[in-house]
């Protein structure tokens, strides 16, 4: 970590998504007078922290060559546990919520590792099953936070920074370091890049896959706890479709669905792109449905640009 430049270079190129983020940031600054205020900017960070946290874990899972569709359901379950159990004990409630995320991630990882069934299928099943468990547990009821400290926490700030934004940014930093600076991060790239070569090199494939599923499970649960603390409540439908938003953000950030490449910095760009667009268009009073249309178009365009810009060109000199 000798220089700022070296720190950010990591292993990835500048992702085109950051050019886009800067462009829309400037655009909305001109279009809306509220946009460029400290309150609004921290607001964007808080709003994106839920999807953002999960996207951090998802980046590792996807670089590893897997995918996790069950994150939305894990988020919902963790939120209901955190709110539902706080009558007994606040600590127990949060521990149970986070523990559930870690356990479910571990189960996903274990099944993918030991059976070799495609992660898409395994976690699709997990998504349905966990959502079902959630309905069984909540009996289709919404829970409301009884502990005021819990619901205040989601709204609190340290100085000018909301706590949720701080937690998100700290997690970004940690995950960036995990991915670029640890042997686990390196092996995550290796396994996603070429599983066979990784086995040949004596890398323990399954172990790394499982750790990454545990990481994404933990982040989904953490996001669930923080989201319910922000709302002071948890509904059984919480987190529906979040897996799609998360995957959108990660892919926008330049992580390949086939594994082997990607970065946390890119994912942060993808998360911010979605957050800024939603926030900015909201300020411009564009109806929410149009936001979806715009996001869909942008997702596809960014990937097209990425394909055009980052072609494995014949221009690279062969020696």
């Amino acid at each position, binding site marked *: 970590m000798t220089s700022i430049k070296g720190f950010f270079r990591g292993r990835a190129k500048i992702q085109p998504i950051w050019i886009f983020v800067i462009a829309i940031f400037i655009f909305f600054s001109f279009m809306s007078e509220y946009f460029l205020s400290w309150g609004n900017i921290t607001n964007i960070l808080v709003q994106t922290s839920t999807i953002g946290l999960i996207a951090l874990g998802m980046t590792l899972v996807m670089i590893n060559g897997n995918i996790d569709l069950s994150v939305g359901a894990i988020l919902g379950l963790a939120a209901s546990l955190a709110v539902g159990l706080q009558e007994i004990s606040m600590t127990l409630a949060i521990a149970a919520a986070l523990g559930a995320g870690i356990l479910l991630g571990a189960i996903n990882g274990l099944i993918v590792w030991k059976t070799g069934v495609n992660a898409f299928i395994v976690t699709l099943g997990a998504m349905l099953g966990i959502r079902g468990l959630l309905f069984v547990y909540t009996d289709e009821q919404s829970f409301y936070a009884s502990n005021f400290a819990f619901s205040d926490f989601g709204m609190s700030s340290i100085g000018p920074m909301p706590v949720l934004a701080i937690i998100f940014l700290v997690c970004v930093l940690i995950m960036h370091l995990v991915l670029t600076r640890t042997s686990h991060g390196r*092996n995550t790239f290796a396994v996603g890049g070429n599983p066979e070569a990784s086995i040949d090199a004596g890398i323990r494939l399954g172990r790394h896959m499982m750790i990454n599923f545990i990481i994404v499970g933990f982040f989904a649960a953490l996001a669930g706890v923080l989201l319910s603390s922000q709302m002071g409540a948890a509904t059984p439908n919480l987190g529906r479709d979040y897996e799609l938003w998360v995957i959108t953000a990660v892919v926008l950030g330049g992580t390949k669905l086939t594994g082997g490449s990607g970065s946390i910095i890119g994912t942060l760009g993808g998360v911010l792109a979605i957050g800024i667009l939603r926030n900015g268009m909201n300020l411009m009073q564009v109806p929410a449905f149009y936001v979806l249309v715009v996001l869909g178009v942008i997702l596809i365009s960014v990937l097209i640009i990425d394909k055009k810009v980052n072609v494995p060109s014949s221009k690279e000199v062969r020696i």
Partner: protein
Amino acid sequence: MKAPTQSRRPVDAAPILKLQGITKRFPGVVALNNVDFDVRPGEVHALLGENGAGKSTLMKVLAGKHQANEGKIILGDEEMAFENPKHAKRAGVVLIHQEQSLVPEMTVAENIFLGSLPRKPFNRVDWRKLREDTNKILETLKCGFKHDDLVGSLSIAKKQMVEIGRALAFTPQVVIFDEPTASLTDHEKPVLYDVINSLCEQGVGIVYISHRMDEIFHLSHRISVLRDGQYTGTVNTADTNEDEITRMMIGRSLELDHASKPNDFGDNLLEVRNLSVKRVFEDVSFNVRKGEIVGMYGLVGAGRSEVAETIFGLRTPSGGEVVLDGEVVKFRNSHDAVASGVALVPEDRKDQGLILGMNCRDNMTMASLTSVSSMGFMQGAKERVVYDKYHQAMKIKTPSWRQKVGNLSGGNQQKIVIGKWLHTHPKLLILDEPTRGIDVGSKSEIHTLVKDLAKSGYAVLVISSEMPEVLGLSNRIIAMYDGRVTAEFDGDNVSEDELVQAITGMGKQAQAS
């Protein structure tokens, strides 16, 4: 080296295809500089050169994949400017790829006419015509499969025939073969040779790219050589020899050097006792001493790679045992094997040995991350030291450690794989086809490297299908046939005939009778 079995006189005819003064530049590098080349109808014109000499680029220009910056392509009497491969194919110039591009789930007929299926009105497929056309092509190929066989069920050699069939569907005037025998076994090659000869008889001009001298001398009428993007000359095959060609390619000549083999052996390092894996190989026993190179010679499918994989912990033996440095070892997975000092340089560099999208340094340290990290955190400076050490020791040619391994030539890629393993500090180094698809220059560098490693105390097991390689490297040679060890030879005193008999099962019959 054996003298060429058959030398062919050059065909006397006006060229069907001429390339004149072709120059192709990529940013920062001149890939081809004023290259001339021509093909006569009914001849096999071999094109030789080290990796990176520009063979592939020249052929891509010819087949319409690249466009030349300068120069002319003249087909018949007409000057052509091929914009894309389809255009070139229509004009009658077809490139048969090194890597196969077939759809395994489709039939032979569908594959041959992929993209150009005969049609009936309303865009329906004319299956009858498809069948008839395919049968016509298969007749020329004279190979043992039918139009409705699934391509996925065919052997590699037969798949290659399908690929050639696909070229024939265009009634080509010129067919380019790029390393066609790279994935064929010795007894599959004659089938390919027959097809090439019958194409010649029909007046098709053949361009043949290969690293293998014996093939080139066996097949070709003329030989052209490229070096560093420059055309160094064309000679008639009948009037030349391997030395001359090698000199043209690399500017010096190579010789098989028995004297440089290692000769100072220590104790037994590896002892394989009656090792078996059900239905794959049976009752395999041999040993490798410290400082010794043992060659394992046999045809593809004889079970050699599988023996190596079993020693390396990738397969579970159904019987027998592996003794490493005096201890019986039972590896549950490759991780255990690496930890105990076994290294396997796999057969397929690109699929099993490297992560092509990763840079050189990361590939180099991949198998030994614990040595360049502390508490799970990577230590960049240590990694660079490791990389620089092997980069220099093995003379790997890359502009920087950040270069993606996928952009390196085969020889340099293989050196990275070997470097990766050396840094795990193994006791036993297993090399499976260490020089497959590697140009002559790098090949001899890798051979020297392997010998030096053995001399410095490593026990080395080399698996190879190339006789010169096995003979040139090994102190002892173990021959395998059909999942069994058929013979063991002294590497310095064995004839080629003895070896061939041992790996084709003939020796066994002789013993039995």
